[in-house]
């Protein structure tokens, strides 16, 4: 019984077999051979939206998660908006301009600037000729994927808690590690020792807890809002100097002149 139709089919004339094959091919093409374009388009659009929106939420969250300890208060003597004021006990001369140095402890160009101008800037602050703020940034950790800017900045603010900001800052820039490499707690502690931080175990506890990470992140953000797009940037009163505009200030004489010009 079952074999009979088969035998019949093979006996059919060639034209009939051809037509049958064409019909089958056509059915295959419309039903199973390809996916429905509109359905696929809908799926692709939905997946694309999920990918982009999900990616944005994940990115924003991972940026926020970088905030370590629960402490969100800035170090004593620092504000998110203006940074950390060094030589805060110095009496300012009348008309002394405010100089803000935007720096990332991982930035090689900042190390170069510190090597050339560091002493000049500190001397002008110590003599009351300028009000000196350091606005610390840490974007190079995000850019390079290394953990250097934030740990060193934490070390600096923990040293500031013990009155050794400027010493730690100077030691960290002169002994800066290669950009893009992560630093160990011991490597940061070497700066604290050079700076003469009196209570090293308290400093250690403060730094390893990442006490000022939240402040450092906020400080990076507030610098961006001020229009700082890279480091080093120097602001004298309301005038920003970076890249090309910073070049004329790149010598002790040039910097001193800019400060004198800004002194009222």
């Amino acid at each position, binding site marked *: 019984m079952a074999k009979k139709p088969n035998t019949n089919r093979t006996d059919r004339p060639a034209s009939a077999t051809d037509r049958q094959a064409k019909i089958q091919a056509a059915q295959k093409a419309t039903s199973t051979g390809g996916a429905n374009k509109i359905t696929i388009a809908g799926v692709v659009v939905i997946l694309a939206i999920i990918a982009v929106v999900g990616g944005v939420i994940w990115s924003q969250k991972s940026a926020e998660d970088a905030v370590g300890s629960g402490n969100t208060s800035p170090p004593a003597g620092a504000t998110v908006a203006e940074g950390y004021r060094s030589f805060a006990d110095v009496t300012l001369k009348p008309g002394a301009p405010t100089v803000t140095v935007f720096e990332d402890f991982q930035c090689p160009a900042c190390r170069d600037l510190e090597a050339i101008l560091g002493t000049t800037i500190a001397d002008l602050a110590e003599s009351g000729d300028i009000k000196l703020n350091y606005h610390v940034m840490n974007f190079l950790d995000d*850019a390079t994927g290394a953990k250097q800017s934030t740990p060193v900045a934490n070390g600096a603010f923990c040293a500031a808690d013990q009155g050794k900001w400027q010493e730690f800052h100077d030691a960290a820039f002169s002994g800066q590690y290669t950009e893009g490499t992560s630093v160990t707690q011991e490597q940061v502690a070497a700066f604290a020792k050079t700076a003469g931080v009196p209570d090293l175990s308290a400093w250690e506890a403060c730094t390893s807890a990442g006490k000022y990470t939240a402040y450092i992140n906020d400080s990076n953000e507030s610098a961006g809002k001020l229009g700082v*797009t890279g480091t080093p940037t120097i602001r004298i009163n309301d005038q920003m100097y*970076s890249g090309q505009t910073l070049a004329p200030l790149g010598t002790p004489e040039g910097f001193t002149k800019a400060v004198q010009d800004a002194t009222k």
Partner: protein
Amino acid sequence: MSTHELTQTPTSDTARRERLLGWIGLLARLVLGGVLIAAGALKVGHPVTSKMAVQAYQIFPYELAGWIGLALPFAEIVLGTLLVLGLFTRVSAALATGLMILFVLGIASAWARGLNIDCGCFGGGGQIGAGQTAYPQEIARDLALVACGALLIRHPRTALALDSRLV
């Protein structure tokens, strides 16, 4: 693709031209899509840098620029993947071309305003030294990608594309 090859005689000029365009189109898809995927992937995991890269152009309001910076890498990866797969080639190519034109305008605007920034096209970005800018090269590269996109908008039927499996 397969029906073309079977029904047309190999010596037919139009068939040969179509087939050549199909393979050139595949190349354009892989170049444009591959560059987009690479550009996106290099930025994923660097959210702060991505935000700062767009903010450095000083075109959009600060907060909005940050959100654009966060979204761009993923949009680039999605568009790049569609192009490499050859899925909805014409629409994907049109969107990618639009994006590239916006990039060219952004870079040109930064150049014209005397900013010293890296385009941040493949991660990084933000301010760089005055002698380190590469605006002409960046614009030339993006214009070459615009050309790839334009070719695909004109001839969206390309070799080895998922489009050919859609009904």
